[in-house]
C-alpha cells in the first residue's frame, strides 16, 4: 500500500509538466476520463433523443409531412418530409442501442464509477490509469462507428436493438442488415471491450485500493452499486461478445449457428441446423443483467443523494447491500422471461416465472428503504434530490408492471406490445436517466469546480418528469389494447383507431421533454465556465470526495490519504453539534458506530 502511495505522490510532482494532449485527450486521470465519458454520453443522448422525436412524429401524425424530417434525414429517408418505413425501424433500433449501451451503460457507469470510485474509497486513482484511458477511447471509437452507421446508404441496423437473426443476418431480408448491421456489430464488439476494461478496473480498484479504515461495510452505497454492476458486466458482456461473434461468422463465413431452413429472396439458403433461439438465449443472458447494469448505478447514486439531502442515514444499510447482491445474483437466472413465446419448453418458462418474480422482493425492499429514509428526515430539495425522488417513483411505477410481464400466462397477451415499451422505459429508461441527472447535479461541483444553476435545474426537473410520465403512462393502455411495438403506423387496423389522439398526446409530451433537455444542456455547459465557484463540501456530505480540494490535482489529496473511522451515513447523529459527521472524523470515546 505504501509503495503505491509513493508512486502516486511522485505523479503529483509531475503535475505541472502535462501537455494539452496528456491532460485533455489521452488523460489517465480518472477525473478527466469521467468528464470525457460524460460529455460523449451527453452527445450520444442528444442524437438518440432526436431519433426518438423523429419516429414519434411519424407515430403521432402518420403519413404527415414534416420539413424537419426532410432537413435531417434528406430525400433518401424522408422524401417530402414523410419518414421512410425502413428508416423508421433503423431509428427505433439505433435509439434503443445508443440509449441502453452508450448512454446508460457507458455513460452512466463510465462517468460515475470513474469519478467516484477513487474519490469515495480514498485512492489516488484507478488501479490502472492506462486501461482506464483505453476504456474511454474504445468507447469513443465505438460511438463514432455507431453514429457513422446512420449515414450508410442501405440504412442503419433496423432489426430492433436485440438484432435477432435471421433478420439481422440476412441482407436479403432487409437492406439495413447489410453494411449498417456490420457497423453495428463492429461498434458493439469494441464497446464490449471498453466495458470490460472499465469493469475490471473498477473491481480491482474497489477491492485493493481502499484507504485505511475503509472496510467493505463502510463503503458508500454508490460504491457497492458500482462494484456489483462491474461484476455483472464482466460476467455477462463476454456472452454478448460470443453472440456477436457467432453472428458475424453466420453473416460472413457461411456458418450456421443461428440459421436453418431459410428461403428468402427467391433462394433456399445453404445453412441448416442452427437455431435463432440460441442467439436469443445468448443475447438475453447479457440482456437481462444489462437492465441491472443500467439500473444499479442509478440506485446507488440515489441512495447517496437521498441520505445526504434527507440529513438522515440511509435506512437499512446492510439490507440495501443485501438487496443489491440479491438483485445481481437473480439477474443471471431470469433471462428466459424474454422468451416465453419462442417455443421454449413451457416448463422451463415456469422456472423463469418463479425466478423473475423473486426479483420483486429485493426491489421492494429498496423502495421501502428509500421511503423510510425520507420519513422524519429534514429534506432539502436540490435538483439532484428531486431527480432522486423522481427515480424512486418511476422505479416503483415501472417495476410494478413488470409483475404482469413476468407472469408467462399474462405475457402471452402483452408480449412485444406497447405495454412492454411503457414498462421498461419507465423502470429502466426514466429511472436510470433520472439517476444520471441526479448524479450530474450533485457531483457537478466535484467535476468542474463550479455549481450548476439551481433554478434552471428545477425547471428542467419538472418538465422532464411531467414529460416522462406523459409519454410512457399512456403507452400502457395502447399496449393493453394489443398494439404491437415497432409498427410504422397503426392506420391499417380499425381496432387501434380509438388511440389516434392518445398517440398525438404521447408525441406532444415527447417533444416537450426533448425540448426541455435544452435547458439542461445550456445549464451544463454554461456552468462549466460561468457557474458560481464551488466550495469544498457544498452539500454538507460525509463521503471522502468532499475532503479533496476543489481544483483537480493528480492523486486527489494533498499530503497523505485520509483515514476512515465510520460509515458514510452519520447524518443528524444524536449528540453531535452539526447534522453531518464526515467519515474522516474519529469516533469519540463513548460513541458507537451505527
Amino acid at each position, binding site marked *: 500500500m505504501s509503495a503505491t502511495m509513493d508512486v502516486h505522490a511522485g505523479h503529483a510532482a509531475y503535475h505541472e509538466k502535462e501537455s494539452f494532449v496528456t491532460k485533455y485527450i489521452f488523460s489517465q486521470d480518472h477525473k478527466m476520463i469521467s468528464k470525457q465519458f460524460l460529455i460523449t454520453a451527453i452527445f450520444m443522448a442528444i442524437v438518440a433523443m432526436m431519433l426518438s422525436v423523429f419516429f414519434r412524429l411519424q407515430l403521432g401524425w402518420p403519413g404527415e409531412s414534416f420539413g424537419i424530417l426532410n*432537413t435531417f434525414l434528406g430525400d433518401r429517408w424522408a422524401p417530402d418530409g414523410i419518414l421512410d418505413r425502413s428508416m423508421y*425501424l433503423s431509428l427505433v433500433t439505433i435509439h434503443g442501442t445508443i440509449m441502453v449501451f452508450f448512454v446508460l451503460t457507458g455513460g452512466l457507469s463510465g462517468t460515475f464509477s470513474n469519478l467516484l470510485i477513487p474519490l469515495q474509497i480514498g485512492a489516488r486513482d484507478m488501479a490502472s490509469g492506462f486501461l482506464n484511458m483505453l476504456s474511454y477511447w474504445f468507447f469513443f471509437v465505438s460511438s463514432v462507428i455507431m453514429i457513422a452507421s446512420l449515414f450508410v446508404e442501405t440504412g442503419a441496423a433496423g432489426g430492433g436493438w436485440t438484432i*435477432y437473426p*435471421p433478420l439481422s443476418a*440476412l441482407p436479403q431480408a*432487409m437492406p439495413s442488415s447489410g453494411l449498417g448491421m456490420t457497423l453495428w456489430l463492429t461498434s458493439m464488439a469494441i464497446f464490449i471491450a471498453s466495458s470490460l476494461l472499465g469493469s475490471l478496473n473498477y473491481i480491482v480498484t474497489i477491492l485493493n485500493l481502499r484507504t485505511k479504515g475503509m472496510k467493505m461495510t463502510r463503503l458508500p452505497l454508490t460504491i457497492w452499486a458500482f462494484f456489483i454492476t462491474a461484476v455483472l458486466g464482466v460476467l455477462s458482456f463476454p456472452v454478448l461478445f460470443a453472440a456477436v461473434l457467432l453472428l458475424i461468422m453466420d453473416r460472413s463465413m457461411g456458418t450456421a449457428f443461428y440459421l436453418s431452413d*431459410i428461403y*428468402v429472396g427467391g433462394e*433456399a439458403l445453404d445453412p441448416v441446423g442452427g437455431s*435463432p*433461439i440460441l442467439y436469443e438465449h445468448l443475447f438475453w443472458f447479457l440482456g437481462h443483467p444489462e437492465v441491472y447494469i443500467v439500473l444499479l448505478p442509478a440506485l446507488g447514486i440515489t441512495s447517496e443523494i437521498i441520505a445526504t439531502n434527507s*440529513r*438522515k*442515514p440511509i435506512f437499512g444499510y446492510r439490507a440495501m447491500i443485501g438487496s443489491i447482491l440479491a438483485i445481481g445474483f437473480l439477474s443471471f437466472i431470469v433471462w428466459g422471461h424474454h422468451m416465453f413465446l*419462442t*417455443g421454449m419448453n413451457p416448463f422451463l418458462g*415456469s422456472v423463469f416465472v418463479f425466478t423473475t*418474480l423473486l426479483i420483486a*422482493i429485493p426491489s421492494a*425492499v429498496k423502495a*421501502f428503504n428509500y*421511503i*423510510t429514509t*425520507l*420519513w*422524519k428526515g*429534514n*429534506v*432539502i*430539495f436540490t435538483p439532484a434530490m428531486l431527480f432522486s*425522488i423522481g427515480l424512486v417513483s418511476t422505479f*416503483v*411505477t415501472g417495476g*410494478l408492471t413488470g409483475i404482469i410481464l413476468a*407472469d408467462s*400466462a399474462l405475457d*402471452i397477451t402483452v408480449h412485444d406490445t406497447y405495454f412492454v415499451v411503457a414498462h421498461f422505459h419507465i423502470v429502466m429508461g426514466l429511472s436510470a436517466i433520472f439517476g444520471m441527472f441526479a448524479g450530474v447535479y450533485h457531483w457537478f461541483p466535484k467535476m468542474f469546480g463550479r*455549481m450548476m444553476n439551481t433554478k434552471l435545474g428545477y425547471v428542467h426537473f419538472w418538465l422532464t*418528469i411531467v414529460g416522462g410520465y*406523459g409519454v410512457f*403512462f*399512456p403507452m400502457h*393502455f395502447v399496449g*393493453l389494447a*394489443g398494439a*404491437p411495438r*415497432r*409498427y*410504422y403506423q397503426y392506420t391499417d*387496423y380499425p*381496432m387501434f383507431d*380509438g388511440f389516434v389522439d392518445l398517440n398525438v398526446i404521447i408525441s406532444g409530451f415527447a417533444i416537450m421533454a426533448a425540448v426541455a433537455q435544452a*435547458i439542461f444542456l445550456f445549464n451544463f455547459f*454554461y456552468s462549466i465556465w*460561468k457557474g*458560481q465557484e464551488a466550495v469544498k463540501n*457544498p452539500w454538507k456530505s460525509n463521503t471522502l470526495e468532499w475532503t479533496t480540494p476543489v481544483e483537480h490535482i493528480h492523486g486527489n489529496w494533498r499530503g497523505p490519504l485520509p483515514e476512515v473511522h465510520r460509515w458514510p451515513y452519520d447524518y443528524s447523529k*444524536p449528540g453531535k453539534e452539526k*447534522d453531518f459527521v464526515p467519515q474522516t472524523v474519529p469516533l469519540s470515546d463513548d460513541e458507537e458506530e*451505527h
Partner: protein
Amino acid sequence: MEKLLIVLVIVLAVIGIAQITRVYKLSSELRKKREEDISPTTNRVNANLLFVFMFLMFGFFIWHIVEYGDELLPVSASEHGVKVDNLLNFNWAIIIAVFFAVNFLLFYFAKKYAYDPNRKAFYLAHNNKLELIWTAIPSVVLMIIIVYGLSIWNQIMDEPAEDAVVIELYSKQFDWTARYPGEDGKLGEASFTLISPTNPLGLITDGVIDAKITDLNAEIADNQASIANEVLPDSKVNELEKEIGMRTRQKARVMNFKESSKDFTASYDDRIVKGEFHIPVNKEVSFQIRSRDVIHSAYMPHFRAQMNAVPGMTTRFNFKPTITTDSMRTVVDDEDFNYVLLCNKVCGSAHYNMQMNIVVETEEKYQEWLSQQKTFVKDDNAATKSAADKVGEKDDERKIAVKN
C-alpha cells in the same frame, strides 16, 4: 428562409436564457446567495409541487381508465382467455393498490418532512422488525401471484385434445398462409428446399421432388456449360462455381426425400388459404406455426394468443374460440369488426401490415367454407401416383391449386 428563422429563434432563446441567468447570478451574488443554499420558500414550493404532481399523476391514470377503458380489448373470445383476464384483473388489483400507496407515501413524506432549520432529522439507521415485515409481505403476495399464474400457464400450454382442429400458420415476409389437413387429418410434410412460386409452402410430393431435381440438374448443367464455353472473368467463374456448389448441396437434400421410402401423399388434400381463415366455434384449435425466412410472431390478441414463428422449427399454440365473429360484432357494437392475426416480431419494412383476418363461425358454416377451399393437388384421385407425377411438371402448374 424557414430554417434561418428557426436558427434565429434558437440563438435568441439561448442568448435570452444566458442573460436571465446572468441577472439571476449577479443578483444572488449581491445577496450573497449560494447555489447550494435552498431557501425555505423554494424548498416548500418544491415539496408542495411534488405533492401536486402526485395528484396530477393519479388523475392522469384515472383519466385514462375513464377515457380509454372502452378502447381496450373486448371480452376474451377464447376459453383460456377468460382465465387469463381474471388473472390479469387479480394482478391489477394488487398492482394499482401498491402503485397508489407507495407513491403516496413517497410524495407525502417528501412534502411533510421538507427542511426546517429548527428540527433535527430522526437518526434511524435500521429496524430489523420493519425490514422483516416488508420482506415477508411481498414474498407472500408474490408466492400467491406465482402459484396462480403458473396454474393458468400450465393449463394453456397443455397438450391439445385428440379431436382438435389442426391448422398450420405459415409466415413469410410479409403475409400469412393457413393450411388445413384434408380427410386424412394429417398435414403433409414440407421442406424449404422445395419452395417455389407455385409451391409457396414447399410441400413435398413425389412430383415436386422430381421436378425440383430436373430443375437443379438443368441449372447445374447451364452453369457448367457457361464455365466451359464462355470467356469469363475469374470473379464470374467463382460466382458460377459457388452457385454450382449450392445447387449440388440442395440437390443432395432433395435426393434424401426421393431415396427415403416415405409416403408423401398426405399433402395432396391439404387446403391452403390466404387472405382470411376460418375456425369453428367451441372446438379446440391447435395451431402449428412455422416461418420461411425470419422470426415472426402469430399474435391473436382477441383470443389472448401469441406464439413466435421460428425458421427451422414448428411451434404450437392451442385455444378454443368461444364467440363467433357475428356475436362479437354485437358485443362491441361494430358491424365491421373482425378478429385479426398480426405479426408481433419485427420482421422487416412492412412488418406493420402483416395481417390476416380470422372468422369464427358455427361448425356447419365452417365445414361449408372449408369444403370450398381448393386442395393442393386438384385431382380428386390425387392419391394415385400418376396424378402426383404431373403436379410438379412445369407445363402443368395450373394443377397446383393455390387460392390467392
